[in-house]
């Protein structure tokens, strides 16, 4: 443009060189949009094919969850992303909408579980530390159901056991939860082999149902006759060998634990079914007890105090526990105003049967109520009596001892239906007490006064005899004055002799009489002092005289 305009010199212009036109050139450019469309279509198809299903997960709290950030992971591999979080209309829960990958499709079935992974510190361990910095993520435990599902409710806490872990779950029923929470270990021969998966109160609140998971290969040791018991805490026992302290593990002291094992004498049983229901025993001892199938309900009416007898106290037959006390009460009869302490107990007749079978001559345990009644009656007629005995001198714990007392007073066992009343005998200590009382009563009946009076009478009689002798002598003296001197003299001589013999202080008769009197007086004294002593120390009759 800076050049000055010049006159065009058109005729001198060169003619352009003709060139053949390339026919395909204009069409070539259309390859670009075609390629672009193809590429775009391919991308679109790929995206559509790759984009998996959209699901919603309802969670309790949105803590740490972020739309577009929080991931859904399976085995730490990302399989989806949360792209929206909002509250439910009732504002109770948080609903997260997540876009999953295509290959996550098979996860979305009825029993699939989702939960948020957050850092967790428990006695059993620390988990989810990585989420401290990266924020929580949602993980999944794929289910096996056939039915598809798109809306899920996340678990509030991470499950202890995921489905792909080999093993089986079992159900335990217990009276109370004890110290067991989810995650508490389950031991088999002190080996941690599983965990408590869940625990919940039964409907009606009568008990607790605990679900446990036992990992393979240990689950095969859970058989139909396996017993479960509480393994938490420390078990201290004092035996003949000294103090024994037992525990499953240090962890179980802290957080509790369960243990299982089959009873040593149990037959080999096939592994239990999944979700088999077991009873949870309180202690290992309880769990290992023989199962008592037959139970006889009896009642013992004790007249004495049952202090020290608690529910669960054993009923022993010569040192062998054959039953246990289930209830201790007290009753009184308004007519006679007498008190009795009925103690109800369960007897396990099988324990007796087993022993008689060992001896070779076993009676079959009666099956019918009538048979049981007859059996108890026979036992009672043969002198079966119950006694209250002290089991432990330190604590004063008592137990009921059942034994045969053939010399016991006959009792008519007139019972028709349970609980069968088994007559009682006073306890050993009570027996002595009663005997002593009986002796005392007999002593009381002795007529000490009569004895004294009799003795006095004897003394008086003797006195009179002496006096009459004296009178006789005097009369003889007087009446014989008129007699011949010789006679008199003879008589005097005779009297003198008699005098000497009878009245002289050293006369042997007088001596004897005096001796006798003294003896009688001493005897009376002795009786008096005995009476005094008995009055003061009646027990001296048995124990002897005590030093003053």
């Amino acid at each position, binding site marked *: 443009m800076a050049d000055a305009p010049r006159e065009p010199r058109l005729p001198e212009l060169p003619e*352009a060189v003709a060139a053949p036109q*390339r026919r395909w050139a204009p069409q070539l450019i259309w390859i670009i*949009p075609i390629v672009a*469309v193809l590429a*775009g279509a391919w991308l679109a198809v790929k995206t559509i094919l790759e984009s998996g299903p959209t699901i919603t997960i309802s969670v309790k709290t949105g803590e740490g969850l972020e739309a577009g950030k929080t991931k859904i992971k399976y085995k730490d591999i990302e399989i989806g992303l949360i792209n929206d979080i909002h509250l439910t209309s009732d504002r109770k829960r948080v609903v997260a909408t997540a876009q999953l990958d295509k290959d996550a499709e098979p996860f979305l079935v009825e029993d699939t579980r989702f939960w948020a992974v957050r850092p967790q510190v428990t006695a059993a361990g620390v988990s989810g530390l990585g989420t401290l910095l990266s924020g929580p993520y949602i993980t999944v435990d794929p289910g096996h159901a056939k039915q598809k599902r798109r809306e899920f409710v996340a678990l509030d806490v991470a499950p202890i056991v995921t489905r792909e872990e080999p093993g089986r779950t079992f159900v335990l029923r217990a009276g109370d939860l004890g110290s067991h929470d989810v995650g508490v270990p389950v031991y088999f021969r002190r080996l941690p082999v599983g965990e408590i998966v869940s625990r919940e109160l039964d409907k009606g609140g009568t008990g607790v149902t605990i679900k446990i998971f036992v990992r393979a290969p240990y689950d095969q040791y859970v058989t139909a006759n396996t017993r479960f018991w509480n393994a938490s805490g420390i078990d201290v026992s004092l035996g003949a060998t000294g103090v024994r302290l037992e525990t499953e593990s240090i962890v179980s002291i802290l957080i509790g634990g369960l243990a299982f094992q089959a009873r040593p004498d149990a037959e080999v049983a096939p592994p239990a079914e999944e979700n088999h229901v077991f009873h949870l025993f309180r202690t290992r001892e309880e769990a290992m007890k023989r199962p008592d199938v037959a139970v006889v309900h009896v009642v013992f009416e004790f007249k004495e105090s049952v202090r020290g007898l608690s529910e669960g106290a054993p009923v022993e037959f010569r040192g062998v526990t054959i039953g246990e006390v289930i209830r201790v009460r007290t009753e009184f009869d308004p007519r006679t105003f007498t008190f009795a302490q009925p103690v109800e107990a369960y007897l396990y007749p099988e324990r007796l049967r087993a022993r008689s079978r060992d001896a070779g001559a076993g009676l079959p345990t009666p099956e019918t109520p009538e048979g049981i009644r007859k059996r108890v009656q026979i036992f009672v007629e043969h002198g079966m009596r119950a006694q209250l005995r002290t089991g432990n001198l330190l604590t004063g714990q008592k137990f009921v001892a059942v034994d045969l007392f053939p010399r016991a007073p006959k009792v008519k066992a007139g019972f028709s239906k349970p609980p069968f009343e088994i007559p009682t005998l006073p306890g050993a200590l009570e027996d002595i007490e009663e005997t002593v009382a009986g002796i005392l009563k007999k002593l009381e009946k002795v007529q000490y006064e009569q004895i004294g009076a009799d003795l006095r009478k004897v003394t008086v009689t003797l006195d009179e005899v002496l006096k009459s002798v004296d009178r006789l002598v005097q009369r003889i003296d007087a009446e014989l004055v008129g007699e011949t001197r010789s006679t008199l003299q003879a008589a005097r001589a005779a009297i003198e002799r008699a005098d000497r013999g009878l009245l002289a202080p050293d006369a042997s008769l007088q001596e004897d009489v005096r001796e006798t009197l003294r003896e009688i007086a001493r005897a009376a004294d002795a009786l008096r002092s005995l009476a005094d002593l008995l009055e003061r120390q009646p027990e001296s009759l048995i124990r002897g005289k005590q030093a003053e």
Partner: protein
Amino acid sequence: MTATTAVEAGLLACHACGLIHRPPAAAHGAVCARCGSSLHFRKPDSLSRTWALLIASWVLIVPANVLPVMKTGSLFGSEKDTIFSGVVYLWTSGSWPLALILFTASIAVPFGKLAALTFLLVSVQQGSAWARRERTRLYRVLEFVGRWSMIDIYVAAMLTALVQFGSLMNIQAGSGAIAFGTVVVLTMFAAESFDPRLIWDPVEKKRG
């Protein structure tokens, strides 16, 4: 303003050396007698070429914006960012000047360019005589500004090359980046293949 155009005078100028020719008598195609460049009154097939490139751009701008342009992997998870999520992130994190730049360079400009080119093509095909001067200026702006859209691609390429710390942190270009780059290049070609002289041609025809 009236002027004689080269076409009216029946003359051809060489784009490479500037030599003016008379068109050859018979053939359709012609080459410069001096330097051998191909000669034409107007860019050959300007409209159809531009249309082709433009349609390709329209197609590809969809995945360019939908697919992630950058995948950031770090110790604590990985993230995929599309262009728009990057803008949103910058905006919400407070650096809105950067967000504006990114929005302008990566979203407003490419879309604007496509829209403007489409408008120019349609208006030329309809032989509109409306606002020719302004439309020509629009074309000039388009041609100038188009290449700056590559900023995004440059950033992604630079980060991909620089931030590679193994598992600690690494950045990868996503498939959206390829689409976006293609869109930018195609629009540049489209702007190039469009002949702005076509805007003015209807005037001459009317006069002629």
